[in-house]
């Protein structure tokens, strides 16, 4: 039992940090430009595919650096030639533009690598058990994922709070007009933030690609969960995104390990539900089976209890 708890906890934290790498970029871009980047998870997917391709050509370490840079460049292009252009039509067309982009990226990935999952293996340097506790061994690549995401979080925090660039970004968040008046090129700052956000998503894709299955629909599978994280954490709040990411990651990982249903619990309490009962089917679902639904159920609960999210400040 203790073994299960410890490893579920570790796996949950890794998954949660991965979610945070995605949601931090998303929420940063949103609070800056008011744009919800629907294609954010697509950039994550591109990161996974690029690192697979670059890994074959140049090895894992160059791929770890080059793939996020490449995707960041794509992000800069998307902002400069797409979003900035469509911005004049308002926020809904912006959102729709990124929606169309997500659609397109999926098809382009199919065109480049086919519909089937690619063999995105853990690189040899990281493919060994790091330590063995009780009877289960913990793979090194998961520790590496954890290290990269924590490192990224620290770097992001320090950049935003301790550097001049971070100062300008923070100022541009609330007072873009004043910042521009002081001689800073605000559109350029926006473009760089967008590029940095997509590069972060791609970095998550590089290290998450071999933990999850790399297929053309991984963006469509992960995207809604990242949105849930951002809404639960409170739109525009980095700290909220961190708490929500870790929370959802840990809860979902524990849920997968729980092989019980409401039916079992009721039986323990001495209540039996007949097979003909209308609720039998609902009660018979194992919690492990329902794990994919948990983020969305949490979303609904959060909306009922506190519509602005954990750390959110705005109502809409």
């Amino acid at each position, binding site marked *: 039992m203790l073994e299960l708890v410890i490893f579920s906890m570790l796996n949950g934290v890794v998954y949660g940090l991965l979610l945070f790498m995605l949601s931090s970029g998303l929420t940063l871009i949103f609070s800056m430009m008011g744009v919800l980047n629907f294609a954010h998870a697509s950039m994550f997917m591109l990161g996974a595919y690029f690192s697979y391709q670059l890994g074959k050509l140049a090895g894992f370490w160059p791929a770890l650096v080059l793939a996020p840079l490449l995707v960041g460049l794509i992000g800069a292009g998307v902002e400069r030639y797409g979003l900035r252009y469509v911005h004049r039509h308002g926020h809904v067309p912006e959102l729709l533009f990124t*929606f*169309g982009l997500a*659609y397109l990226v999926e098809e382009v990935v*199919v065109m*480049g690598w086919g*519909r089937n999952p690619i063999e995105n293996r853990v690189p040899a340097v990281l493919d060994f058990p790091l330590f063995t506790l009780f009877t289960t061994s913990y793979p090194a690549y998961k520790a590496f994922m954890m290290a990269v995401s924590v490192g990224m979080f620290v770097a992001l925090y320090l950049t935003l709070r301790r550097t001049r660039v971070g100062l300008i970004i923070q100022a541009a968040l609330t007072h873009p007009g004043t910042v521009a008046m002081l001689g800073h090129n605000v559109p350029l700052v926006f473009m760089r933030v967008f590029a940095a956000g997509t590069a972060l998503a791609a970095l998550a894709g590089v290290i998450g690609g071999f933990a999850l299955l790399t297929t053309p629909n991984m963006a469509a599978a992960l995207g809604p969960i990242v949105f849930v994280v951002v*809404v639960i954490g409170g739109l525009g709040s980095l700290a909220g995104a961190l708490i929500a990411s870790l929370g959802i990651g840990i809860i979902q990982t524990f849920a997968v390990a729980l092989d019980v249903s409401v039916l079992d619990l009721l039986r323990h309490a001495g209540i039996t539900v007949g097979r003909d009962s209308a609720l039998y089917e609902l009660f018979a679902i194992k919690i492990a089976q329902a794990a994919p639904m948990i983020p969305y159920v949490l979303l609904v609960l959060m909306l009922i209890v506190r519509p602005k999210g954990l750390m959110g400040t705005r109502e*809409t």
Partner: protein
Amino acid sequence: MNDAEPSTAVSAALPGAAARRRRRPWPWLLAAVGLAVLPVVPGLDSDFVRSLASQMGIAAIFALSFNMLLGQTGLLSFGHAVYFGLGGYVAIHGMRWINAGLPVPVALVPLFGAAGGLFFGLLIGSVTTKRAGTVFAMITLGLGELVVAASLMLTRFFGGEEGITANRTRAPQLLGLKFASQLEVYYLIAFWAFLSVVLMYAFTRTPLGRMCNAVRDNPERTEFVGYNPQRVRFLAFAVSAMFAGVAGGLHAVNYEIVAAEALGAARSGTVLLMAFIGGIGNFLGPILGAMLITWLQVSLSDFTTAWQLYFGILFIVVVLFAPGGLAALIALHVPLARARVVHKVIPGYLAALAPALIMALGGSLLLEINYRLATKPELGTRMTLFWVAMDVSRPWPWIAGVALLVGGLYAFRRSWALVEAGWQAASERIAGGGAP
């Protein structure tokens, strides 16, 4: 696209004329007669056309119900298929009850769909409409995923992977309709589509429909005049879900099966494409988009497996260059037609059309080659595209594709000057009092 100068002419010409036109009943009568005679027009009297028209009718109701949210109330939903699908499930279960002896004619099955859509719209809408704008969009996406996940687990209601089936012919008959032929199904769908369109149009004229526009444009002021924007959004959401349920009910009658794909994210995305490509600012836009996209879905999927890619490109082009959709592009020409100067702009369009087609040919050649190589590598490098046999292991097909694409793009940009010149001439003529 340069729509800066013509749009002023539009806004000057529209309001009074549009209001006068709206009171006339003949466009509605014309549409009703058109729907009635369509399946017996020589050349269009095949089952293929009837089936296509049936699909278009269903899609038109669905797209209009979607636009009740997006165009009218300013709520962007990424999970509208949930109400289509749940309405469809309620309708198919209703049809099963009818098969088991419930004395209701099949022609009324869409009402089951409407009830289902309304019920789930009220239930889910009470949560989703707590927020507006971007957050609303994200929530609808999440709830869509939730319903899809639930549909795969609760097999008694949703029937799992195979879905639920029923038989539309084993039922009490109304007016002798047996629904054994596609023609009778077409008339059923045409009737409900016409009725729904009329009702949805009427909804835009009600005080609630007007308040929806107010909530879209300025929720704060809406509050100042004494309305609760959240409540208006909620009501609009429920009504919209009800009409989506009607479309789902017709889907159930048309196919006699409802499966999980009916409420999936792909359908939610398609209805967004339909409404936006058709034009969300015009009542008729989504109908136009629904007809176009349905037709493209049916016809393109025969020629290419990459049709989703083409939809994506078409959607992005519309978002970037014509955010008003096809309806706005057409509306742009109404004042020209009224001033009888349309002929001024047509030569420019024809001049721009040729390079645009060349560009599209080059682009789709490259896409088709790539798609085929990636998704069906086992078929080798020899293929026939656009009636030309080629071997793509040699460089020539690629060079031809790039040349057509780049050359077409260059010529298109050059020819755009002719389009602008045509518009210039036409608007000068209008400004000059329309004298010849």
